[in-house]
């Protein structure tokens, strides 16, 4: 194995990496972020910004860390005076035509030009006698604006469209200091994954119209989450301002979505901020639904479950957490049970340059989790069975009307007219308001984290169901989503998994066993 690793020293710290590793990545291993603009791990190396110049012992010239592979015994100094001087030179050149309009720029606060100039740039410009290059803002596509004045021509957007999206509509037009990012005269930047160019842009040159002037970067709270747009399970970060989700951005996961999310997922957040929420448990009193406390509502459900016999049906949302789906089934384990969910279908939209990454036709995040737990896609059969069932439990599904001669218990975030016949209504949290897991189409179990508080008295579904199950079975209550997951992980195919094991990147169910095709 001796020849399968390379030993080198970066800023005095020894590091061992696989052969072929780029210096810029090796440096990350010792905690050094070499300043850079054109380099992005998800794109082919361009080596054009010349920002990542570092000193390599015994080499006559400074080397760009993004295109230099490690070699045995290499001694790299990122902080060498000549390297710092060269990088300061690049920053000065980048700034001569860059407007200092940070106060009105969406990128401010998360701008790599700001960061590195602050870190090692000159205190003042020497480009004082001249006006800056000016080009008007261009409308590139449905959600992308191009502000050429801020562009530093790193070409990340060009390479994304060419090499990742495989729809090369962007280019570098003109030469020298007249250069700008051009778009094909008859094309729009409307590829289903085009929004990634906004994330990739290291400065505020490519902007999302949806996020335009919505928030300053430093006002945002962030939470790791999983996209709910389809069964791909792309890892995302929810950005919130004042407990309102204002932006969804990709969170890197090399196994699932690399560094990207599609525009459908990116735009799929407004419902998380809905104001028409159920904020208190409701129980039927004299033909009317009246607000009550949780103890009363849960007692009522316990009584209804205990009093029912025979057939029970669960209509679940494929947006429900795996924990909630599991507990909902366990609650009704003594019944002749049937569970189903409705999977909305859409058009598949692959990202051509990344294998096994697409906006999937199955437009919900947890269909696989539901199927692993015994729920079926045959929602019509479940609705038919519900008509004669003794007990029907709706978990988070507001779009499937159910009628029953038995008892209807409705747990949801909103209360549609067709659910007003329920005996009990339980207010639950949505994905942004709870911890939980989803199982993507490849059987990868992935955690999502609470991003904001649930409104009113709404509680996570796993908590509600665990309260019911615990009372029913005389078992221990789950006080966290992790407890609920541990209950789930007592049996196949989830056995062996835990929140600690899932971490931020997730893990596949055992051997992918039982994952429906």
């Amino acid at each position, binding site marked *: 194995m001796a020849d399968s690793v390379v030993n080198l020293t970066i800023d005095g710290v020894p590091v061992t990496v696989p052969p072929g590793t780029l210096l810029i990545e090796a440096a990350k291993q010792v905690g050094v972020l070499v300043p850079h603009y054109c380099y992005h791990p998800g794109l082919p*190396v*361009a*080596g*054009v*910004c*010349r*920002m990542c*110049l570092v000193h390599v012992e015994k080499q006559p*010239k*400074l080397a*760009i860390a993004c*295109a230099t592979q490690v070699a045995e015994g290499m001694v790299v100094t990122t902080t060498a005076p000549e390297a710092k*001087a*060269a990088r300061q*030179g*690049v920053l*000065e*050149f*980048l700034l*001569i*035509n860059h407007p200092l309009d940070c106060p009105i720029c969406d990128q401010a606060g998360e701008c790599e030009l700001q960061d590195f100039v602050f870190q090692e740039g000159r205190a003042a410009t*020497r*480009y004082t*006698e*001249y006006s800056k290059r000016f080009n008007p803002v261009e409308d590139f596509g449905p959600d992308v604006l191009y502000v050429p004045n801020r562009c*530093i*021509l790193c*070409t990340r957007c060009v390479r994304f469209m060419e090499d990742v999206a495989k729809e090369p509509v962007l*280019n*570098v037009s*003109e*030469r*020298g*200091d*007249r*250069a700008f990012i051009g778009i094909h005269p008859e094309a729009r930047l409307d590829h289903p994954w085009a929004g990634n160019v906004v994330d990739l842009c290291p400065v505020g040159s490519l902007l999302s119209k949806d996020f335009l002037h919505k928030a300053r970067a430093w006002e945002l709270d962030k939470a790791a989450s999983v996209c709910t747009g389809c069964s791909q399970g792309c890892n995302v970060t929810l950005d919130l301002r004042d407990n309102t989700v204002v932006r969804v951005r990709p969170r890197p996961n090399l196994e699932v979505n690399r560094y990207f999310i599609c525009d459908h997922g990116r735009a799929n957040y407004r419902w998380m901020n809905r104001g028409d929420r159920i904020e208190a448990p409701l129980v039927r009193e004299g033909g009317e639904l009246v607000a009550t406390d949780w103890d009363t509502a849960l007692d009522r459900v316990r009584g209804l479950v205990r009093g029912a016999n025979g057939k029970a049906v669960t209509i679940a949302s494929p947006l429900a957490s795996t924990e909630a789906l599991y507990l909902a089934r366990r609650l009704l384990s003594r019944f002749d049970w049937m569970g189903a969910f409705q999977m909305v279908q859409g058009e598949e939209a692959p990202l051509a340059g990344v294998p096994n990454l697409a906006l999937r036709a199955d437009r919900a995040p947890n269909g696989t989790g539901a199927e692993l737990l015994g729920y079926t896609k045959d929602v019509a059969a479940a609705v038919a069975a519900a008509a004669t069932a003794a007990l029907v439990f709706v978990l988070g599904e507001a779009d499937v009307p159910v009628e029953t001669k038995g008892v209807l218990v409705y747990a949801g975030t909103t209360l549609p007219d067709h659910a007003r016949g329920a005996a009990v209504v339980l207010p639950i949290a949505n994905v942004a308001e709870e911890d939980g897991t989803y199982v993507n189409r490849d059987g990868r179990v992935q955690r999502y984290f609470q991003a904001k508080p649930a409104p009113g008295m709404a509680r996570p579904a796993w908590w509600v169901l665990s309260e019911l199950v615990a009372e029913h079975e005389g078992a221990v209550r789950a006080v966290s989503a992790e407890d609920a997951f541990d209950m789930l992980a007592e049996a196949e195919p989830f056995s062996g998994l835990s929140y600690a094991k899932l971490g931020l990147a997730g893990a596949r169910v055992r051997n992918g066993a039982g994952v429906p095709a």
Partner: protein
Amino acid sequence: MGYPHKPHSRETVILSKYFGDAEARSFKGWKKRGGYEMLDKALAMDPNAVIEEVKSSGLRGRGGAGFPTGLKWSFMPKEKKKAHYLCVNADESEPGTFKDREIMRWTPHALLEGTAIAAHAIRAEIAYIYVRGEFTEPLAIMEQALAEANAAKVFGKIKIFLHRGAGAYICGEETALMSSIEGKRGNPRIKPPFPAAAGVFGLPTTINNVETLVAVPHILKHGAEWYKKMSLSNPKSTGTKLFSICGHIAKPGNYEVTLGFPLKDLLYELAGGMRQGRTLKACIPGGSSVPMLNREETESTLLDYEGCVEKGTMLGSGGVIVFDDTADMVYQTMRLTRFYAHESCAQCTQCREGTAWTTKILERILAGQGKMSDLDLLLELSENMTGKTICVLSDSCAAPVVSAIKRFRNEFEDYIAGRRKPVMAA
């Protein structure tokens, strides 16, 4: 000086022997002058033997870098697993250089013959001759010659294509040239991978200059020893070279001399010296990208790779630009940087922004609004533009600036101090 004209007695006329001889342009005329004999000889030789012969001749690249040609050829994969390509750099765009143009205008078959021999040596099936877009006449002549040679089936299995450039200086840079041939924007690429490993279309490629390749048949004809003996100074610089002389000179034109020839004699004897009543002020000996020399340095320079380096410049492409005492070195420097600012491909930050900023500062000095601190700023920008980019266009812009300030600082200071009348509008 136009052709035909009698060569100067101190010229060593090998490559330019048939310049002005219109009959040599035709296939028949070229055959009559012994053309394509060396191609037949080479095709019968083992490719490695051709490489060895060129290696021992000491021939070095005439495009500017002066890399040993045989050694470059030997970098091609020993075991041929994929198609090999030869690219011929006929994108002669270096300001002050016009030798390849004359080679193609007068002896197109010499280039085709050299190209085919080189392709055989590196075991390439396909050779692209990348002709500068503005070279309409040379291209027409090359097309005619190629059609005749193809009709006579002289190239064996080797296919030669002419590819016309679209007018970008940067496409003379070898990796940009390959990008351009591939139909992409002519941007230089980062090395490694070097062209011999992954060149045009990602396949092993060698790129040679026109003048380099036309020397090859002569080496095969007379032998490496004969070629090696043509050296007047340093034995590492062998053979003859065409020098294109332009600017403030009595008889501008192409002159072919043996390497090591004194620059002073080239200017004063062969090219007829300065215009009447004028004296030499400065000279750029190797095309606009190399540092300029003052009079003393010019008059003591020996024209070979080492001799130029000794004086702090480079032999480059052999484009000799002459400035007499009427030249405004600040203005001339600005004209050069303006060219590089126009031609920068815009990839590397230092080049894209630096060439333009440098030009703006020089324009401001010429407008009488310079500051003394501008000179230090220019030198610092030049330092930031040197040795830090993908290709050397950025370095080429910095070289004239640094050398001009070093040698003619007083002229800059005259503008800044108001001792000289501004020549540009503010």
